[in-house]
């Protein structure tokens, strides 16, 4: 596969400590397009080994607006279903440029390891120094060891090592969309996580047209009035959570966006520092970056202040546990009780639709109505929208905000970028295959 691709699939066997590469066949893209179209295909190909598959979308890491996302596809140890978890922040784009389009991890290592993947090279590295450490300590230790603060990680903490059903795979220092207990899956395989660094280059079939059309699309996207806002408070407000801004304001520092994403879907809280501080904080860990809309709402509904919510979210991110599960299943209301409850979280989180996509994402449109009406129509739209976002690599929350990012436009850009002739019929077939 010549364009928008690194032309390689990585297959790692943790049990045999073997790393192999496969060529990325263009025919596979013609049939499955990319993202979860291909991670699901690879899961089924290696099904006997119950693999963990990581991949990027066909448009990830390009100039297509919000082309930020990658995906983890694996069988959830909680639901027993093969599910797809978005990879957000700047991690998705780092994976796109690390030298492999898809990564298949099979087997179980005898000893703790992490996978260090950079510039087309993959190492199974000893994780005995970080096993037992929390997510923040592990990410910091690996960055220090490699000597690169921009290295991006997927990491589990104590929750994953202990086999909690709500153990998350966290991204860098932060909570993730993982509501499937993928952290438990990593822990069971002695896999502490991944470190990624990518400095590669992607060729484009028609580069000038791709970039020119990207700018035209961006200009249309920017006409949306919701882009006058930033961060999570307006999202909570749009979802009907009253008083979110007033509640969050006392600890809100700044808002940041995932790669190439026009709306800043992340909000940082400063907890041990003045939130109005513009200078670099002298404190090492002044706060927490938040992307989990429903966890925020759930802690607010428990009656916590935004400051205590931030402390709870920070503790969850360090421990590597799903904060939404902690808030909704833990049945605790005080900060100390909450942070002391992590090992006792049990119960079930409802996963909407067919249970394939993370309920981390709001269950319907945000800021725009997409001309939808009625619960059934919204639910069917949501599932399809999640599938499409994760086939092409679009930030999945922004996909719920922005009607201009149509299936037609994603297909058109995929064709300009690859020189292939992907059609709506192929896309429909891929979505049918994913959603059943």
């Amino acid at each position, binding site marked *: 596969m010549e364009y928008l691709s690194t032309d390689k699939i990585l297959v790692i066997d943790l049990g045999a400590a073997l790393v192999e590469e496969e060529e990325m066949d263009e025919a596979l893209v013609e049939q499955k397009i990319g993202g979860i179209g291909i991670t699901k295909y690879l899961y089924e190909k290696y099904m006997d080994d119950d693999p963990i598959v990581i991949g990027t979308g066909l448009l990830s890491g390009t100039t297509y607006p919000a082309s930020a996302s990658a995906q983890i596809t694996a069988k959830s140890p909680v639901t027993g279903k093969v599910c797809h978890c978005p990879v957000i922040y*700047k991690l998705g784009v780092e994976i796109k*440029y690390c030298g492999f389009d898809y990564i298949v991890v099979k087997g179980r290592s005898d000893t703790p390891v992490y996978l260090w993947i950079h510039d087309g090279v993959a190492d199974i590295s000893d994780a005995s120094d970080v096993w037992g450490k929390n997510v923040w300590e592990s990410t910091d230790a690996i960055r220090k060891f490699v000597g690169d603060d921009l290295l991006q990680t997927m990491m589990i903490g104590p929750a994953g090592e202990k086999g909690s059903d709500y153990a998350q795979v966290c991204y860098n220092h932060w909570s993730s969309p993982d509501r499937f207990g993928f952290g438990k899956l990593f822990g069971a395989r002695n896999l502490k996580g991944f470190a990624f660094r990518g400095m590669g*280059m992607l060729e484009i079939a028609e580069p000038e047209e791709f970039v020119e059309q990207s700018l035209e699309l*961006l200009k249309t996207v920017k006409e949306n009035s919701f882009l006058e806002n930033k961060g999570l408070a307006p999202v909570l407000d749009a979802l009907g959570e009253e008083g979110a801004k007033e509640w969050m304001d006392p600890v809100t520092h*700044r808002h940041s966006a995932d790669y*190439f994403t*026009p709306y*800043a879907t992340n909000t940082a809280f400063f907890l041990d520092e003045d939130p109005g501080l513009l200078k*670099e904080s002298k*404190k090492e860990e002044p706060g927490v970056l938040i992307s989990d809309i429903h966890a925020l709402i759930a802690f607010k509904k428990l009656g916590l202040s935004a400051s205590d919510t931030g402390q709870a979210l920070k503790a969850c991110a360090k421990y590597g546990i799903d904060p939404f599960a902690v808030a909704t299943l833990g049945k605790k209301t005080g900060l100390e009780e909450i942070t002391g409850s992590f090992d006792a979280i049990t119960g079930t989180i409802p996963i909407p639709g067919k249970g394939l996509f993370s309920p981390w994402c709001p269950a319907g449109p945000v800021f725009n109505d997409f001309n939808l009406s009625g619960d059934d129509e919204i639910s069917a739209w949501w599932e399809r929208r999640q599938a499409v976002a994760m086939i092409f690599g679009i930030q999945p929350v922004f996909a719920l905000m922005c009607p201009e990012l149509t299936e037609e436009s994603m297909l058109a850009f995929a064709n300009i970028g690859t020189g292939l002739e992907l059609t709506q019929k192929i896309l429909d077939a891929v979505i049918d295959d994913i959603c059943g």
Partner: protein
Amino acid sequence: MGIQINALKCTNCMACEMVCSYHRDDGFAFLSACIVAYRAKEKKDYFGVLLKEEDVLVVARPDGTEINKLGEEADPDREADASAKPMLLREGCDLCEDMDDYGPMCVAFCPVDAITLD
């Protein structure tokens, strides 16, 4: 004429970095960009934009913009971010002089209009 960056508006999306690199390489990559969304102080939520011009490094921070002559160390503490070092090896901003249809790419693609041409 030059690029002005409002680091307080910036959301650290890296769009400027990608399109600047594209204007040099005609491919998608980051390494050739002379404008970089720096993000090495992630836990401190401290981010802004670095711009390499012909003779100077512009450091647009939320607390203000510094212009440092290349080769001179401004404040060793603050210049320590990992993304700053390779900047010195990159070509300086040419205002995208060869991109007739666009003008400066970073200005055109910044989704929050944090970059302007003055």
